[in-house]
Each structure stands twice: as structure tokens, then as C-alpha cells.
């Protein structure tokens, strides 16, 4: 499984993502600097966490309009599995690849801790190794993770199984405690929690590992 990690100025979880991908898939990912948008064909694209472009204007707003994202949007629309973590999720909503928006946490605090969440849909290429309703512990670290969409969109997301993960308690004001969603086709996942930081006991747990094995088992 050949992966690419897109690196923007201000990304800071790109190396964590690279380590997780190499350890789990056995293949070093391609690190794609945002200006090198003509990158080789890959099976999977990851948009890492961080503070790309210093969160100027809105989180993810600048990255979403960058040259490399034009290429990512094209490939994601062609069906290439694409994962956005934290700032990557914000970028995906800013491009319109995923519905809704991520707003400032309702209590205004930067929340940085391990949180419990449930796997809401195991019928996606990112979650099939989890058990339905499984509760997992994954760290979050964000100031703008308060997921917002209008009620019709939320109903549709829940009705169509596009809500992949929900927090078990309200940590940031997110509508319906949504932690991660997929697009209708199911090849794009955006989530605020960081599964790449929970892939082995030395990191405090391995609950994030199954996300990557799900993907690998589907793609291989």
C-alpha cells in the first residue's frame, strides 16, 4: 500500500502519520510538500494535523485553496481513499469534500486529552476492523473541533451512515457529538481525534491501529 502524506507549512503531525503508516503498512509513505503537487500515483492520501498557514482566515482555509489540494480533490473525487486528521479534517470541510464546518470549541478551551469515542459505522474502508459500537480511546488536541452542520445535513449524515465516530461525552460542542464523518461514497474520512498517536502500547494504547489495518486490509 503506497501512501502519501501532504505537508503544508505549519503541519506538525505529518511525521507521526508517516511513522504510523510505515509501522503498520510496512511501506514508507511519500512526503509531499505542498508545492510539489505533481506527485506519483498512490493508493492512499493523508492530510495530517497541525496549524497549516497558521490557521489564517479560518482553520484549513488557505490549505484548501492550495495547488496541492487541487490535485488531492481530483484524486479523492476519483475514489482514492483520503484521510484528514484534525487540521486535515478542517481542510476537507473547507474544500467541500466533506459537509459542514469546524468551529471554535464551544467552551473556547484548547482541548488536549485522550477521549472516548464510539465507532458508529464499521461498514467503511477505514473502520471495518472495529466492532460495531466499539468504544475506543484516541487523543484529541484542538481548538476548533466543534463540528457544525445544519439539521438536514446532520440527519442525512446519520441516516446514510456517514458518521464514523462520535465522542461519548461533549468535549467541544460538536453537533450530535460527531468526531468523524465520511463522504457519501465512503472513500474520504475526516476526524478530529488522532488515531496515528495511538498505534502501540508505548504510546499509551493501540486503539488507533485498526483504522490503518482496516484501510490496509481493504487496499491489499
Amino acid at each position, binding site marked *: 500500500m503506497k501512501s502519501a502524506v501532504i505537508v503544508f507549512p505549519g503541519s506538525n503531525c505529518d511525521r507521526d502519520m508517516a511513522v504510523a503508516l510505515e509501522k503498520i503498512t510496512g511501506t514508507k509513505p511519500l512526503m509531499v510538500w505542498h508545492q510539489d503537487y505533481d506527485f506519483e500515483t498512490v493508493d492512499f492520501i493523508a492530510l495530517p494535523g497541525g496549524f497549516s498557514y497558521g490557521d489564517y*482566515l479560518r482553520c484549513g482555509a488557505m490549505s484548501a*485553496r492550495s495547488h496541492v489540494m487541487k490535485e488531492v480533490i481530483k484524486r479523492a473525487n476519483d475514489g482514492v481513499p483520503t484521510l484528514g486528521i484534525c487540521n486535515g479534517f478542517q481542510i476537507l470541510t473547507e474544500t467541500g469534500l466533506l459537509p459542514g*464546518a469546524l*468551529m*471554535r470549541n464551544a467552551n*473556547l478551551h484548547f482541548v488536549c486529552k485522550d477521549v472516548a469515542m464510539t465507532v458508529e459505522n464499521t461498514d467503511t474502508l477505514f473502520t471495518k476492523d472495529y466492532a460495531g459500537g466499539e468504544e475506543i480511546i484516541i487523543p484529541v488536541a484542538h481548538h476548533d473541533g*466543534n463540528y*457544525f*452542520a445544519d439539521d438536514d445535513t446532520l440527519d442525512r449524515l446519520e441516516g446514510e451512515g456517514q458518521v464514523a465516530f462520535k465522542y461519548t461525552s461533549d468535549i467541544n*460542542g460538536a453537533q450530535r457529538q460527531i468526531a468523524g464523518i465520511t463522504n457519501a461514497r465512503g472513500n474520504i474520512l475526516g476526524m478530529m481525534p488522532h488515531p496515528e498517536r495511538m498505534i502501540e502500547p508505548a504510546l499509551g494504547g493501540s486503539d488507533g491501529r485498526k483504522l490503518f489495518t482496516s484501510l490496509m486490509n481493504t487496499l491489499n
Partner: protein
Amino acid sequence: MKARIHVTLKNGVLDPQGKAIEHALGNMGFDGVNEARQGKFIELELAETDREKAETAVDEMCRKLLANTVIENYSIELE
């Protein structure tokens, strides 16, 4: 030509920063502030001299970058 753009959160979208400002004003003794909403102000210096063309262009800039229309409204003033 100058364009002045106000970007504000839509009605019904919770504005936690506005709420914090409202509470702070209350705590400071400024009574009678029923609500505070926080937004952004963006000023552009445009080369365009035709008002209609400028308005069309700035509107497109707002829709494509300056505002996130999922959660925000915008208004444009030209001068």
C-alpha cells in the same frame, strides 16, 4: 477602489467568542448589552474602477475564500 467586507456568523450558529465578550462586558459593569456577535473585517484595495465589475469580483472572492458560507454571511461595501 476600496472594498470593505464584513464576515459574520449566520444567525443560529453559536458564537462562543461573542458570548465570552458579552459576559466580559457584563462583568465589567456595562449593562444593557443583550448580545455580542464577533466577526471579521477585511479591506481590499482594488485596481478595478468599474463598480459593477468590482462588486461581482468581490462577491466571488467572498464565496470562494473570504467567507465560509456554511456558517458565515458576508456584506460588501464599495467606495
